[in-house]
């Protein structure tokens, strides 16, 4: 195990088998050496691998983009709205009308007759599984994706 230690510091004579190694090869030379090991198709493989890696992130981590908003009233589905265009929706409940605002990719409860306004203050919902519940007026707004990653998200 002790052999070779002195060679690292350069204090020992160069091994006779490598007369060309006058000095440590520069970083550029080393890079060239390694690059020669890659054939043209290898770059293709590496590129495809990188594309595969990059493609897997959104595929695995988005759990399906937010695609629609499910509005429930009194436990029944009142409406399923595509999160593609801007629109507002009025949902009747025992206390009055809850107003749902939909924008591309997100939705929120814009107004609610409930006393504490929790669902209104929750703001925009954009991820699949997020839900705002206006309990006093028996209205809920939930974001759904293609596949539901979670049963529900709460904060």
């Amino acid at each position: 195990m002790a052999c070779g230690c002195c060679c690292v510091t350069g204090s020992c004579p160069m091994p006779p088998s490598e007369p060309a190694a006058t000095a440590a090869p520069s970083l550029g030379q080393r890079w060239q050496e390694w690059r020669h090991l890659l054939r043209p198709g290898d770059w293709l493989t590496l590129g495809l691998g990188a594309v595969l890696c990059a493609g897997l992130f959104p595929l695995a981590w988005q759990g399906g983009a937010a695609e629609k908003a499910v509005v429930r009233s009194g436990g029944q589905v009142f409406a399923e709205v595509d999160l593609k265009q801007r629109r507002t929706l009025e949902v009747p409940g025992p206390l009055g009308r809850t107003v749902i605002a939909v924008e591309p990719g997100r939705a929120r409860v814009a107004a609610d007759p409930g006393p504490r306004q929790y669902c209104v203050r929750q703001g925009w919902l954009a991820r699949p599984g997020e839900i705002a519940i206006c309990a006093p007026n028996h209205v809920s707004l939930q974001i759904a994706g293609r596949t539901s990653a979670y049963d529900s998200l709460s904060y």
Partner: protein
Amino acid sequence: MTPSATDADCRRVLRIPLSAEDHRIARLAAAAIGLSLIDAAIPTPLPGVKPGLANIVTLIVLARCGWRAAAWVTGLRVLAGSLLLGQFLAPGFFLSATGALFSLLALGAARHLPGRWFGPVSLSVIAAFAHMAGQILLARAWLIPHDGVFLLAPLFACAALFFGTVNGLVAARFLSTPLAAEAAAAEPAHV
């Protein structure tokens, strides 16, 4: 019971004839086992992400001795490596066996790629991805039957790309220095 009788008994011990091929595979498998022990000693941030240094041996054997020898070396490495690490028949053993199987199958297909264009790095990256795919599918089917497993897929894929490239480069480096006998015979004009 005379001494000569016991001698005769001893001589009746089954002797399996060993070919040079067997010795070579055993030697290479030993090298692979050593590397997989080093692999196991390296701490990793995520369970399942390992450099897979033993695959360097697989790649070299594949290039020099063919797919059959590579399969033997890999199989022996998985078996003996798991015995040494105390993982035999534990989940980790099945994971590495599945990964080895998938990567060997992928290598069996990928080695028919034109060698002029695709070198050890391509083979290594393809094998690494196959290895990862096999493991994640087994994990999904058996160990963690929930789609949440796939959340780790991007990280595993990145690790496969990185370590596949590094291992492939190391294997290519070994393969680019031809054996003394080969250097004289096979590549006289190559500079």
